[in-house]
């Protein structure tokens, strides 16, 4: 229990190779600067065989950042997966935010109704959504269905969480595009394990 907090950092789940655009975003400098550094050899890397695309391995990224006094935290930040928590109970939201922040592998945003969930999905483009079934405006299955209709979010993972639901309803939820279902009250390990599984963080 609680192992996630301790075992974070340089796990295999981190990104190994970056494009020049990604490197620019992480270091908060322009892509032109990165390309110039790459081409002058100050930022070590390789070109994708058979193409001209530049690629920077993680180790040379770290070396480059240290040499140029760029905080390494930025790299860690880039590794985080975006999670959107949708629940109308603020204490549940708070609990989840606590859990995910302690874990450190997740960047968390929250919404308390289906409408906000939709807006944030467009804006925040989460990798995973934790969706309460009983929302004040629409039910979770509607949110789920709406998101799945947009192909831009085809790869987004959705975990539905609810206290009152029977087996048939769970099957229905899976049909409209949920990836997993968790019953409230959930064990936080169970929740994190499910998320790690879905996002293939291991």
């Amino acid at each position, binding site marked *: *229990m609680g192992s996630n907090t301790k075992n974070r950092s340089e796990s295999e789940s981190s990104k190994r190779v970056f494009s020049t655009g990604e490197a620019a975003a992480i270091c908060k400098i322009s892509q032109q600067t990165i390309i110039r550094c790459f081409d002058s050899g100050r930022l070590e890397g390789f070109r994708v065989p058979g193409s001209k695309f530049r690629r920077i391995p993680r180790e040379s990224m770290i070396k480059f950042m240290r040499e140029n006094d760029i905080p390494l935290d930025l790299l860690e930040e880039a590794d985080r997966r975006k999670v959107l928590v949708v629940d109308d109970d603020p*204490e549940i939201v708070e*609990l989840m935010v606590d859990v995910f922040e302690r874990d450190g592998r997740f960047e968390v945003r929250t919404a308390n109704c289906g409408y906000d969930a939709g807006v944030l999905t467009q804006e925040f483009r989460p990798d995973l959504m934790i969706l309460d079934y009983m929302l004040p405006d629409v039910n979770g299955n509607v949110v789920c269905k709406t998101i799945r209709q947009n192909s831009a979010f085809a790869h987004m993972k959705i975990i539905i969480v609810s206290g009152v639901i029977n087996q048939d309803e769970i099957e229905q939820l899976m049909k409209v595009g949920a990836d997993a279902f968790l019953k409230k*009250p959930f*064990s*936080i390990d169970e929740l994190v394990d499910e998320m790690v599984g879905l996002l293939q963080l291991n």
Partner: protein
Amino acid sequence: MNQEPETKRSKSKKIELIIQQLNSLPTLPAVAARLLQITVRNDTQAEEVVQLIESDPALASRIITMATRASTGIKRQSASLSKAVVLLGFEAVRNAVLSIKVFEALGGPDEGKGGQFDRAGFWKHSLAVACAAKMLVRHIDRRVDPEEVFVCGLLHDMGKVALDACLPKSFARVVQLTESARGNIAELEQRILGIDHTVVGKRLTEKWNLPESIKETVWLHHHYVQALPEAVKHRSIVQTVHLADILAREQHIGYSGNYYLTNSTQAVAGELGCSAEQVDQVARRLREQISERGVLLGLDEMDPEELYHEALCEANRELGELNLHLQQQNRNLRERSVYFELLSELTGSLTATQSLVDVCRLIADLWQRKMAGGNCAVYSKEADELIIEGAVKLKDEAQATVFLVDRTDDPEAISLETADNEEGAGFRVKPAGESHGWFFEQVSPGFEMASTLMIPLRHGGETVGGVLWEQAEGARKYQGQINYLAAFAAGAALAICQAQKHQELLRLSEQLAQANQLLHEAQRELVRKRSMAAVGEMACGAAHEVNNPLAVVVGRSQLLASSEEDSQRREILETISHCGQEITKIVSELMEFAKPSLPKPDSVRVEELINRAADALRDQAARENVQIEVELPGTLPEIFVDEEQIIMAVRELILNAIESYQGQGGTVRLTGDHSELENEVMLEVIDQGCGMVEETVQKAFDPFFSLRQAGRSRGLGLSRSSRYIGENGGRLSLRSKPGTGTTARLVLPVCQMAEKHPVNLEAGF
């Protein structure tokens, strides 16, 4: 009395009074109005006129009298109304009727003798005007019907008679003054009464709906012919009557009450295009015409008393005929009254709830006493003809006895021929021997078959029974009474039919009571199910409310535990988390109990099911030192249930059995049996543990009822078992005695497709 000149005010008051008096005059009888209508049409048939006149016997008599007197060719006795109408012609009849009716309403020539106004003379004058007008009109306007002019002439002064009838005293004064002054009566009427006879007459024609031509004549006949307004429709009639009036007065025929002549005949005639010769010719023929017409109208010299006498004779003859007819009817009525007495006695004795045999008994008794004298029987049969009920009243016995012919077991044994083959033949009395052999064989050999008659009792096209009675004289006795007999039979049939329906109703209500009982039980079950559903709803609501806070409790305690260094504190936090999760399980189970998932039944082998349930508990049993023994016959058919749900139910029963030993150890036996009749499998879970008192057994299936200590178990066990078993079409019952143990018996439905999986039935039983 009347001071002259009178004030305007009192005059107008008088006018009102006169008009009120006019209103009190009788209306012109409808027959006259109607006759006017139909004789105006061209297509009128003689029969119509005849029918109309026939409706007024006095009028008819008058018309016939007129016809016979007008024509010597018709003998009095052979005079008929239709002959009279043909003889006289429509117009003549119409005019005659009109005149007669007007005379009747105002009082004829024989009235008013005491007053100044000479009615007879007046009518004579009127007749003279009528005749003169009729002759004159030919020379004035050929388009006008002379008969119409005749009526107009006849009635032109009706206002005078009206005044005489309404205000005899005042009018007498007018007449007196006119005579002494040889003046114009209309002027005096105006002076004394405030209204003259032309206006009064006009009012009267309006009141009586007389034709427009009459109204205009009555109103305007004093007007100077050239002064008549263009709007007058019947100018030539009015003018002709005006001329005729003058002519009649010049000829001094009758009494007009007027002595004032404005113009000479010649002058007026000249203005109307009538030559002096023509007027002379009319004047010459006038007296002859008057006597001819006078006869027709009964205004001749004939004594009115004679006329009255004739009418009386006529009426008397008619009365004689009527009396004969009534005597005949009276005879018929006396015969009929016997039947009506019978019917009324029957209906008087009937009550709404009488049984069928009681009704039969009643009819038989009545018939025997009032009609038959000899033995009598009445029976009822229902549409299926399986049971015949009835009553026999023997002449020597005071009470009717009841009989019953039951053909339910073997309808062929007693052949039944009732009156059904009578279809279409009509109602009649006939010998009973022909069709009621069964009666003499089965019911009463005491009846003499040869002299027994019968009538069918039919209602609504169905034969509902019959009446049989001994009558030596045979069916002929009832000839001529058949309609009344039929009426009584219809009454009796109705009574029997009603009793049959009542009996049916009784049977039906008994069936209904039974159905009601079943319904009541079903309803109780429904109420139980509903209350379970309500618990389910509540549990769902609770679960929703409880689960979110629980999620926070569990989550937070886990989060705290993960960062807690102190192992003791961490353990406490983990306990909190665990208990939170326990709570949610309870809520979930309650939900599942109240709203179980629908069973998904399949054919299941009983041995497998029982062994799975038992095996899951062997370890736990062993800890309690309890043995689980499965003793199933190898012949049990497959059952059709949701395997998981039934396993859960059986596990609960085994668990209860284990716990009944309270740790003392013992044996839990699982046995099975098969009822082919009910197509069910019985399973029993038997222990010899502590047992339960009756009260506990009764409450054992209530949710959360448990004798075990609080905190040890949730107490949903047995009730959940019962619920699952019920949902799968089975039943669960408990037999228990304190100290000797408990047997839980569960009954489950056999798989209907058992034939597909043959089992060795011979070996087991």
